């Protein structure tokens, strides 16, 4: 029988991972999601010329109404509250008529994707950074620590930086042509003729993509807490905006992400009430039972797109080893490929859904009909 060797059994399940930045979807048993699209809903307003304006909004939605021949479905959602969960279950079973369904927490799946059932999952995504202790495959809810300093926070800081520099963020769809200018000079570009009218939100969305691209390619986390002299000596990175403005960024590339790890320096924060990433981790572990702390420190799983900034893991390693007692064995697990780190929750879901021993854990339609929405709470830990 296929998969009998490693304990897998393909049932034809779909795995969905809803993030606040992007949605990952694909078949279970594969090693990366087939679809990865941004979490925005585009609503087209009626126009004669058929162009699609998009009013962007938050949260989930399926872009295309595909009819997929599936048997089963597994969703993975950040667990906000019971109402959301129950609503989701209801939606799945009644609206979409799914035969079986299962919800699992993303932290647990990230841990599974890295081969562990116990560990501290540090997820730094776009909206927030969370440290979630996972023990034996169950999340310890009382140890979850959240901080709003994440990708969006850094985008905001980048935006401020550009404002300070007096540079205008122009998304690519506006630009018709541009001339090359020397460094630091204001950009010379021509606006496209006959641009259709776009909504404010869509324009913002496109600007955000520009900033996010800047963020991903230029920013770096330094090895030690931010120091003016050290930063001035770092090599500069050249970056060109879509409108032609190009510049070398030196100290700023280190300054902005440092706000993540040490918020006392960052601008725009009210006092020192925010926790840096290192503090988030240690607080989370500190809230757990002392017997499991070595286990948690021994497998700190780093996931989330925001952690892909250059130097993030090294700096985190350093901070944690400073804060833990010297006898503690600290191990950071961070996959180096972008795919694995961004999609680790999805990959964990894929692994879980294809296990032979998992097949008994689905919530089937029958169970839902018998038990109602509360069965989700019981069956999905």
């Amino acid at each position, binding site marked *: *029988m*296929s998969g*009998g060797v490693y*304990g897998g*059994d*393909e*049932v*034809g399940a779909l795995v969905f991972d809803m993030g606040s930045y992007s949605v990952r979807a694909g078949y279970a048993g594969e090693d990366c999601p087939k679809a990865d699209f941004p979490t925005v809903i585009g609503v087209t307003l009626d126009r004669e010329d058929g162009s699609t304006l998009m009013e962007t909004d938050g949260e989930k939605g399926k872009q295309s109404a595909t009819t997929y021949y599936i*048997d*089963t479905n597994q969703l993975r959602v950040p667990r906000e509250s019971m109402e959301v969960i129950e609503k989701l279950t209801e939606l799945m079973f009644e609206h979409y008529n799914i*035969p*079986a369904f299962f919800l699992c927490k993303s932290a647990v799946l990230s841990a599974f994707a890295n081969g562990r059932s116990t560990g501290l999952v540090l997820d730094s995504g776009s909206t927030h950074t969370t440290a979630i202790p996972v*023990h*034996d495959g*169950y999340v*310890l*809810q*009382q*140890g979850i620590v959240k901080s709003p300093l994440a990708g969006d926070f850094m985008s905001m800081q980048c935006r401020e930086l550009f404002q300070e520099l007096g540079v205008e963020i122009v998304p690519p769809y506006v630009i018709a042509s541009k001339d090359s200018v020397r460094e630091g000079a204001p950009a010379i570009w021509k606006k496209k003729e006959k641009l259709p009218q776009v909504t404010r939100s869509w324009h913002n969305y496109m600007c955000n993509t520009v900033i996010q691209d800047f963020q991903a390619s230029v920013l770096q986390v330094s090895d030690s807490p931010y120091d003016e002299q050290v930063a001035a000596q770092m090599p500069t990175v050249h970056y060109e905006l879509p409108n032609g403005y190009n510049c070398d960024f030196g100290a700023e590339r280190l300054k902005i992400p440092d706000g993540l790890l040490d918020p006392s320096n960052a601008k725009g924060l009210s006092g020192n009430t925010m926790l840096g990433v290192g503090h988030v981790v240690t607080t989370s572990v500190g809230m*757990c*039972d*002392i*017997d*499991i*702390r070595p286990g948690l420190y021994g497998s700190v799983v780093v996931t989330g797109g925001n952690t892909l900034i250059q130097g993030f893991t090294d700096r985190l390693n350093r901070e944690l080893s400073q804060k833990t*007692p*010297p006898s503690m064995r600290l191990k950071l697990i961070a996959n180096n490929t972008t795919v694995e780190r961004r999609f680790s929750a999805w990959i964990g879901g894929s692994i879980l859904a294809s296990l*032979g*021993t998992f*097949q*008994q854990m*689905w919530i*089937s*339609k*029958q*169970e839902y009909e*018998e038990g109602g929405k509360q069965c989700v709470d*019981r069956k999905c*830990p």
Partner: protein
Amino acid sequence: MTTGADVRDILELAGGDNDSGPISKKDIINSDKKKAKKVTETLTFKRPEGMHREVYALLYSDKNRDAPPLLPSDTTQGYRTVKAKLGCKKVRPWKWMPFSNPARKDGTIFHHWRRAAEEGKDYPFARFSKTVQVPLYSEQEYQMYLHDDGWTKAETDHLFDLCKRFDLRFIVIHDRYDHQQYRKRSVEDLKERYYNICGKLTKVRAGTGTEPKIYIFDAGHERRRKEQLERLFNRTPEQVAEEEYLIQELRKIETRKKEREKKSQDLQKLITAADTTTEMRRAERKATKKKLPQKRETEKPAVPETAGIKFPDFKSAGVSLRSQRMKLPSSVGQKKIKAIEQILTEQGVDLNPMPTEEIVHMFNELRSDLVLVYELKQAYSNCEYEQQMLRHRYDALLKAGGTVTPLSESSGAPDSQSWPGADDIKTEAKEQLIDVVGAPLTPNSRKRRESASSSSSIKKVKKP
């Protein structure tokens, strides 16, 4: 070194097994008939395909071709690199089949791909569905045995429900415990209650006669252990450093204490040796005067042999020179030899007297006594030095402490030159409260020795 046979074997050419042994004299010189004989005699074991020739050579070397292997094995399988058998047979068909998992309670039908031949067999993963046995109690049992003041029935039920759901993972149970509705319980509380109930139930249900094995959970011990772990975890680096420093200091103190004890013991031995030898001598002389040889013999075994020099007793068979008995044993150190020589020359005694019986005996005794005196003097001067040091320290501490009552000067030092680094002592006094054992042999020690030897102490010993 590869022979032609090896080369052929590597290249897997034919004709490998004919005469693959090393070429010997016989092969060259011998006639053909013997060669032919050899060929027919030997059984050729064909090396199984896929086995490396070195491995094969270990098994069946040239000499012991007919040695059977210790464990008969089947070499037809296993050494072949398994290649995919893309045969000409038809592909076994796979079907998208429905199946039900016996571990599920609702009997949902799922579909998956399976070989058509395996239809109808059980779902193989069902056997992995194991759960922990959590005991269930009835209402009655609860009322009778399990009643507890700190726990209501509802709370106990909640606890057991969680235990069942989470398979006794107490940390997760503690995390999911409803703290708003019930009181805040620690992990130990939950464990304690659970194991208490389990214990009572097993006792009750076991019936009479059998003594069931109950797991005793010591909650107090667990609490103390966790508290200690917390404290250990929360130690600051300064505390850790301080602890290490204290441990080191403790070790230093212990070693110094041991040294001191050893020295005092040595000293003790020396003194007793000196006392007993003098006693013995007096007894000897008295005995010779009063002509009572018996006393001498009773007192002899009391002398410890570590003091003085032990001259080896010459039990030679045959002829030997008496002067050999006068020779100093090699165990005596250079300094002692020099000291002996010095004293002897000062007193005008010949260093190598005529070895008559009596002279040899007396000379050996003399030298032994001299060594004893030397050792005693050294010990004495060491003690004096120590006393001086401590006195200085004490004065320094007093001064540092603020009270001004310096002790009177040290008495009876043989030499009164300034001690090296009296200022150092004062500054060190605060740090080194632990005394230093053993006087270093400064240049003063020689002066000390000379002055000691020239003093009247030797004369005292000579007189009875």
